[in-house]
Structure formats: C-alpha cells, structure tokens
C-alpha cells in the first residue's frame, strides 16, 4: 500500500488534510479491496458494450485494437454487475489470489 491509497507519514499529511489538487481522486486506487475479478472470454464476447454502460465505476472505459472492452483493475471493486448483465455470459468472476 502506498500514497495512491492515502498512505503517508503524518509529517507529510497536507495542511488540514486539504485536497489542493482538484480532481486528484482519479489517482486514488480504489480497486485494492476487490475479492473477485472479472475475466472476459473473447470467444463469447460480441463487443456490445453492456459492461461499459452498466459498470457503476466506469471501469470498462478502454477498448483494445480489436474492440474488446478492457476492465481497469485500478478502480474495479469486483461487484460482478458486468458478469450479471453480459447477454452472452462472456464475463466470469474469479477469486483474486492473494
């Protein structure tokens, strides 16, 4: 765990714990307490983008060259909505190994 999860020694805590940089919440790693990870089966995926639309954290905001939606694990909390809504059952939630 590091500064991307708000970890810092007390002497480095900003004055009054102010946030001086607008929009820096994007740097904050929120995917570290995930216990399940979505895994895509490209054989089944039709690139419909339902996962992209339904993800509450907008984790599927990137596509690769072939057009498959990529999950951003920096933010993904493993809620499983993408797997539940996928019309082709192309997403499986697998246990995160420690």
């Amino acid at each position, binding site marked *: 765990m590091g500064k991307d999860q708000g970890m810092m*020694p007390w002497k480095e805590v900003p004055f*009054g714990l*102010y946030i001086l940089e607008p929009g820096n919440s994007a740097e904050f790693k929120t995917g570290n307490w995930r216990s399940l990870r979505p895994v895509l089966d490209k054989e089944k995926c039709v690139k419909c983008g339902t996962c992209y639309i339904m993800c509450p954290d907008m984790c599927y905001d990137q596509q690769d060259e072939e057009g498959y939606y990529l999950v951003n694990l920096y933010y993904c909390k493993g809620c499983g909505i993408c797997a539940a809504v996928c019309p082709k059952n192309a997403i499986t939630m697998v246990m995160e190994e420690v």
Partner: protein
Amino acid sequence: MGKRVAKEVSIAIADAVKLARAEVIAAYPITPQTHIVEHLSELVANGELDAEYITVESEHSAISAALGAVATGARTFTSTSSQGLALMHEILFIAPALRLPVVMVVANRALSAPISIWNDHSDIMAQRDTGWIQLWAENGQEAVDLVIQAFRIAEDRNVMFPTIVNIDGFTLSHVIEPIELPDQEEVDAFLPAFKPKYKLDPRKPLTMGPVGIPEIYFEAKKAQDEAFKNTRRVILRVWKDWAQRFGREYHPVETYRTEDAEVVLLINGSLAETAMTAVDKMREQGKKVGLIRFRLWRPFPMQEFRKAVSKIPVLAVIDRALTPGGVGGPLGTEVRAALYNAARRPRVVNFIAGLGGRDITVEDFEEMADRAAFYLKKRPKEAYEMIGVRES
C-alpha cells in the same frame, strides 16, 4: 495610548472586536453573551464596523457560518454561552481539524438542568477536548486584551487554530470596569490583516474536509495534535510583543504570592480576583497562601504549570464544574493527571464551588485554604469536596 474609560465588559469586548477589524460576525444571542453581539450588530448597522453580520437561527448555524466565512479568508468572530455552546458541539471539533481560526468569546454559564443563566464553567469544560486554543480572562482589561491577541494568535500561519476567550457570565460580562481600549493605530500595528495560505476561492479550487479513511485519519489527527502543541511558541511570542507595546504581561500560568506558600489556591476566571483579596487577607494574618490560575488552558501549559507548583506543598484546585460520579472536577482531574509523573509535586485537594451562579466569597476562599492546610499532614480521603452547599 488609548483612553481609560468605564465600560461594561461586554461592550468593551465588542469594541475590541471592532478594533480588530473583524470582517464577519455570525452569532445568535444568548444570555449572558447578548450584550456583546447586540453591540456588535449596532456597530455594523451604524456603519462603524465594516463587517458582514450574519443573523442565524441557532448557535449550530452561527458556528457553521463562521467556519464558512473564515475559510474564505475573512476575519471572523462569534460568541456564545452555555446551551448555545453545547449546541455548537459537533461543529467545534471541525474548526481545529480544518485549521479554521475563528475567534469566539464564551461568556461562561451553567448548563441545564436545572435551567440556570448564571455563571459557572460547566459549559466550557464540556468542550475541553474539541481542540480549540482556550484562554481565560479575569477582568475587563484582560478580556479586551485577550480578544485582540486571540485574532493574532489564531490567524498566525504557524497556528491556524480557532481560539476561545473565556469570560465569566455576569460576574465579568455585565460589570462596568475601568478599561483602556487601545487606539486603532496601535491595534493595526499589532494585528496584521488575515492572510491565510489556503482559502476557499473559486479561482483556485481546493477541498476542505474530505473523508479521512482509516489509512489516513490517524495521521491527520497526529498532525493536528503536533501543530496544536506547537502553537505555544507563537502564543508566548504574541504575549511578549503585547507586553512591549502595551505594558501588560500575560503568562500561560499566572501566579500570585506563591513564593514560600504552603497552600496555593487554583481557580480560573474572574473569581480569581476575589481569591486574590482572600490571599492578601490571609497573608496579613501570617498564613502562607498563594494563588495560581490558568491563562492558557489549551494547549495545556505542562512545563509552566509543573514549574509553578513544584515547590508547593498543597494545591487546592477549585472547580466550577461538576463531573458527576467522577474522580474530581474537570480542572482537578486534569491537574492531578498533569502532576502524576512529575518529580516534585504538591498534594492536590479538589473543591467544587460556585455552581450555577453561587457566589464564592472571600470567606469561602479562606475556608478552602484552611481546609487545604489541614492536608499538609494528611492525605485527602475524598476525591473532591463541595464548598457552599447547604447541609441543613
């Protein structure tokens, strides 16, 4: 030098806030603080003080509005008492954590029930751990001086903590005393404009008060505590500067005739002046009695306090607040804790007196000193004793 005039202390405090050029005042009237905010509203309405006066629907709103105002970089003042201070409670913790240097005068008054508008220290003692700098005034002159100093202390970039000036309700707030109000030029020279490093400004957005997740909350509190303890240096510097400019000295722990004393009384607030009269009287009778009071209550002046009492055999701590079922009054408990590990310490006797406006007379102070002298040879059995309660 300013003129010495006879003034009601509340009015003089309002005048001191004006001399400090407060820019925002957010307050809700409550006895016995009323005259302070009433006079301030008059000064603003008459155009004598160029400030925004926010009338609010409660003390909870008063302190909330004050925090918002000071966060924008405006010099901000508020004042309250008793139930009003209690209603502010949850916001009081936020001000120091967000480093928002509001200055507040608390006209100390008992808490209900029974309903009491009269003076004791139960209101402020319940706010001990909110993290504000706390100062005590004993007379009108001190109240005026401390209010002006409070702005300079609170707003210093090495401080940036809210500050309370405690004045006793009625016994100080409503008395007329000869008070020297400094000239505007003198105050301007002493008190620079408030220029915080960070403030709420749409041109330069920042967030004050984000959530502190478990990974950072503790570090944030440690940083707050360290910064708070470090305010001591600035407070001492401000008092030194004040003494040079105005000739009146202030110390974290004030002592009176404590040299060679066998029994020393400790009381905060205006009744310390009555205690002084009692000390003088007892000294005339050959009794070795002295007096100590806290000028600075938070951050606790550990060093100065231990030094002040190191050679004293018995310290009689007089609390004007009750900790029901506790091990002493708030002052007594704290003083005992502060001395527990001290190499040299007095025996501590704790009295509870003057609750809900009950007067503490010169004779009461004499009685307490005599009772305390009894403990020169014997350890007190009780955690605290009440003085002035009718038994029959």
